[in-house]
């Protein structure tokens, strides 16, 4: 039976009718049109569907939509503020950290929570922190470079 559910996504409230077993990823993509949430494995292994829920990185294919009730959800669509890209988004462009783009949303949101939690994360910590987000195209070198560059920029701005 579908139930009404209120979700707060990127600062805005939405009312959706969902089955209790529907994943957050599915509801964000199919019901609300946030297709920047990419689903690649649907078993919580690859990290491409990563979103931020109350400040924590969450694999949205593993969270049921009703579990996100009353929480602040951030998807890649909500990362740029007032038309200005987040430093991570800028760095991913400038450092050529994007290829097919399918892992990019999850990768950027994972990196954001990593840097929010530890603004001085070392390269080693960043690489370990990304170990649940796979990328098949880039070989990770430029992704890690971009995150390191964004870190400098974010710390400078603080």
């Amino acid at each position, binding site marked *: 039976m579908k139930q009404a559910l209120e979700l707060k996504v990127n600062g805005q409230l939405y009312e959706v009718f969902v089955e209790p077993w529907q994943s957050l990823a599915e509801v964000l*993509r199919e019901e609300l049109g*946030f*297709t*920047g*949430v*990419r*689903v*690649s*494995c*649907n*078993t919580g*292994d*690859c990290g*491409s569907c990563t979103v931020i829920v109350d400040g924590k990185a969450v694999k949205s294919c593993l969270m049921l939509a009703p579990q996100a009730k009353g929480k602040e959800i951030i*998807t*890649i*669509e909500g*990362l*740029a503020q007032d038309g200005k*890209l987040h430093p991570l*988004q800028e760095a*991913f*462009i*400038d450092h*050529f950290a*994007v*290829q*097919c*783009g*399918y*892992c*990019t*949303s999850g990768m*950027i949101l994972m990196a954001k929570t990593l840097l929010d939690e530890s603004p001085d994360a070392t*390269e*080693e910590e*960043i*690489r*370990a922190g*990304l*170990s*649940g*987000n*796979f*990328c*098949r*195209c*880039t*070989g*990770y*070198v*430029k*992704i*890690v*470079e971009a995150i*390191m560059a964004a870190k400098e920029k974010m710390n400078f701005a603080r």
Partner: protein
Amino acid sequence: MTHSVVGKSVTRLDALAKVTGQAKYCTDIKLPGMLHAKVLRSPYAHARILSIDTSKAEKLQGVRVVITGEDVPPKRFGASVFDQHVLARSVVRYVGDPVAAVAADTIEIAERALELIHVEYEGMPAVFDVEEAWQTSPAAVVHPDLPEYQLAKFPSLQLVPERPNVCNYRTVRCGDVEKGFQEADLIIENRFTTPRIQHCPFEPHVCIAQLEADGSLTIYAGRQSIFLAKQYLCSLFELPPSKIRVIASYYIGGGFGSKVTLYTEPIAVVLAIKTQRPVRLAYTREEMFASGGTRVPFVIHIKDGVKRNGSIIARKMMMLLDMGAYAGSGPFITRNSIYGIVAGYRLPNLKVDAYAVYTNQPIVASFRGFGTTQVVWAIESQMDIIAEKLKMDAVELRRKNLLKEGDMNATGEIVHSIGLRECLDKVADLIEWDKNTKQEKGSWKRGKGLALGNKYSMAPTAAVGVVKVLEDGTIEVRESADEMGQGCITVLAQIAAEEFGVSMDRVKVVWGDTNFTPYFSRGSTSQRSTFNLGNAVRLACQDAKRQLCEIATQKLQAPPEDMDIKDGKIYVRSERSKAIDIKELFTAERELLPGEFGNYVEKKGEVVGKAVSVTPAAPSDPLTAQIPSDIARQGGRLTAFYGYAAQAVEVLVNTETGEIKVERIAAATDVGYPLNPKMCEQQIEGGVSMGLSSALWEEVVLDRGKVLNPNFRDYKVASASNMPKIDNVKVSIVIAPHKDGPYGAKGTGETQMTPTAPAIANAVYNAVGVRIRDLPMTREKIIVGKRHKNEGQQKKQAR
């Protein structure tokens, strides 16, 4: 020659859409009234279908149609052997073979319906091992009707009547290999294997098929090669080309060769025709592993005759390629794997026998490298074995045998644009080859290794480029390469910007629709988009410029030959003050406001430049694979070009646990000329990481044909934490301009994956003395190898 846009690392055109989540993929498309499809697959590797009862499934609310083998065309399809029905019609040949399909209102209903379909099977003997399947009396014949099947005209295939599972047999004969062995000081013989691995593109296979009112079909697909799909579907459904439209005008979430042949499309088409509704079929990750195509596993016997001074004077290779149950591109890979053998080294006497062999294993697909990665695994491991036996340095041995510009390779091609020596020297330098490795205390042992690699691009091929000059002077490139992350739209835009002398923001690219974008034979495969389509776009720009100059003749009062175009202006070369804006060539029909853009060009309507770039292939002898020497001397080739690479690695190997850590990587690739250096680096780093992952962990594990690890938990791909520190990944781009490439460029999507696995294996041997011949290099293999080595030493001491 200096360029202003090509050769520069301009920002990727797709980067902004991808970092903001705005980028659209096939999987994001929804059409009004769209149904969702699911496929029922065989649980058996080889069985006869006795009956299928779909009545219960059909009664489930929300199910719109259930189809079985009786509903699909009687005609078979395939990329080389026409061996596959859309759904199995009487026999299933692998675990995962499609048996029935459902279209329903939701995916969940379709899934439930599958459980209600009852299929009765009768088991048949199956054959899983390629060496067994190759025999003259195998345990099972996968396609008893093979001799009656239709075979593709290109590539031409050769069956072997006494070996019923062989669907292609290809050979190379160069010189006299037996005589070479007699003259050799040393004979070295080994057997190497490569496993079945999956491409793991991040967007799984997906398509939507729609039947139009006029009986034509529109197919939205997340795939490579829209024109190839159109050709395959026209043939399968017996429709003229005007009746099929294939669209991939959005981004593709990775391909790596997995999205070239048909998977989802034929089933979705049958369901769409039955229901008269758009039908979406999307594979799950599990289906990708079981039925989404895998890399062809090779068994390679290699025998070399070598002189004491290190020259290889004879090489013999016998290869068995496991096609799985339906051959797909496999027979084509069998043919083209020989190009990987002849690419790098002088081989005066060469004999190759390669067999494509059916088994009851999962289906295969083209995969980054297209057979070259597998043969390079054997050859480059073998080179180190030879070097050790001769007590020769591994770099020195390779240098001694390298082909160079102007040499003739073992298929008779004259070598051109070979930066292999520079690649080798570069990585040897970067890894400090001449410095001794510092050994650690304890169970971690350090070692270095290197390997060479190569990848041809296929011929013959054709690419058509179209550029339209818009009313504000913007250049619109229309093309049919697939933007799957490799960056073709950016490179093609750079070429147009260069030719028109404008900045990147004056160029736009539209792509991926067989109704509107021009022919590009096999799409983005064989690392060919930059080379083939780059040439076509460049020539199309020149055609458009020629037209613009002709139109400007009257206004500029000068002959078109004396004109040129830059920054959106046409000017007279001999009198540069005489110039007009491209905009001024457009007439405004009815201006809404003064000074607005024009709408059309007098007499011509619009300015559209067009060109075709054809890369021909010389004829070659079917037995020897040689091109006639007179044709070769006139520049005749079997391939479009060869890319070359070298990689060197430093590894740590744990003698207690068998774990391998790659600590440093140096990778050099000859790209001809880098049109966008940073994007070349992306390809190199990505190829290295896929190479590393496949070397250490990747294998689709099968038990009687059933995949045991169809997910990312049990099938490990490299993560960021598995890669060396970023400062320890040294990438080097080697320039060896190709006379036929745009600005000297060659393609470079595949080359860099070829040397990684043997470089690591050679480093592992250097570290712990264990020679791995069968990929992947799992911990068990290291430990078992170490134990055998110790036992060997003890025996020696006992004697």
